[in-house]
């Protein structure tokens, strides 16, 4: 079974540009999460999808960040326009929708975003 995949693995952009990150969850996982780790800090929650619906977006930093999950499969996270403080590693995770499995979140390898 394929794990969570993320693309690209690394992105370097200039301040003011737009970047779109993609996450493909494990097949059949209705729950999809985005997290971010900025340098020296802990991994922090950004938002949670259940299928195509946003369940919780309390961690989204501001309106420069837009997440979508059309069709309830893969998800994209767009940053527009990017700022220097957006640099960090963006992780995607997914979990099943049943019982305690909802808490077993499987993480992707992350996308390292560098804004210069």
């Amino acid at each position, binding site marked *: 079974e394929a794990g*969570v995949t993320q693309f690209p693995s690394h992105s370097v952009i200039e301040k003011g540009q737009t970047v779109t990150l993609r996450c493909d969850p494990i097949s059949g996982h209705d*729950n999809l*999460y985005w*997290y971010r780790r900025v340098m020296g*800090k*802990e*991994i*922090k*929650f950004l938002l*949670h999808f259940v299928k195509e619906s946003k*369940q*919780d977006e309390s*961690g989204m930093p501001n309106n420069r960040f837009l997440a979508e999950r059309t069709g309830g499969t893969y998800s994209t996270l767009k940053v527009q326009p990017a700022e220097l403080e957006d640099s960090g590693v963006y*992780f995607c995770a997914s*979990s099943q929708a049943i019982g*305690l499995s*909802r*808490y*077993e*979140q*499987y*993480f*992707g*390898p*992350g996308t390292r975003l560098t804004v210069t």
Partner: protein
Amino acid sequence: QKEVEQDPGPLSVPEGAIVSLNCTYSNSAFQYFMWYRQYSRKGPELLMYTYSSGNKEDGRFTAQVDKSSKYISLFIRDSQPSDSATYLCAMSHTTSGTYKYIFGTGTRLKVLA
């Protein structure tokens, strides 16, 4: 004050030692406690999770939760150089129907051959 506190280390131990990794937390609503292992430039890998209090064992790994003290531990027996990684604790509660994790900063572990 952070909701979850974890000593960043690094923690260096000789091969074969028993390793104890710990996290403390402040939110008594946490019920689900996870341990992840993260190798450099990789994503976090789920090791174990525990619901509420008690112990859980899986091979060389034992997770303990003491809710009265708001303290969780991960023990690694017979540590190996391949165990060298960053260990992250994460916690969740069931309010509002979301299962988001609150993470500690991670403890870097080095097992010396």
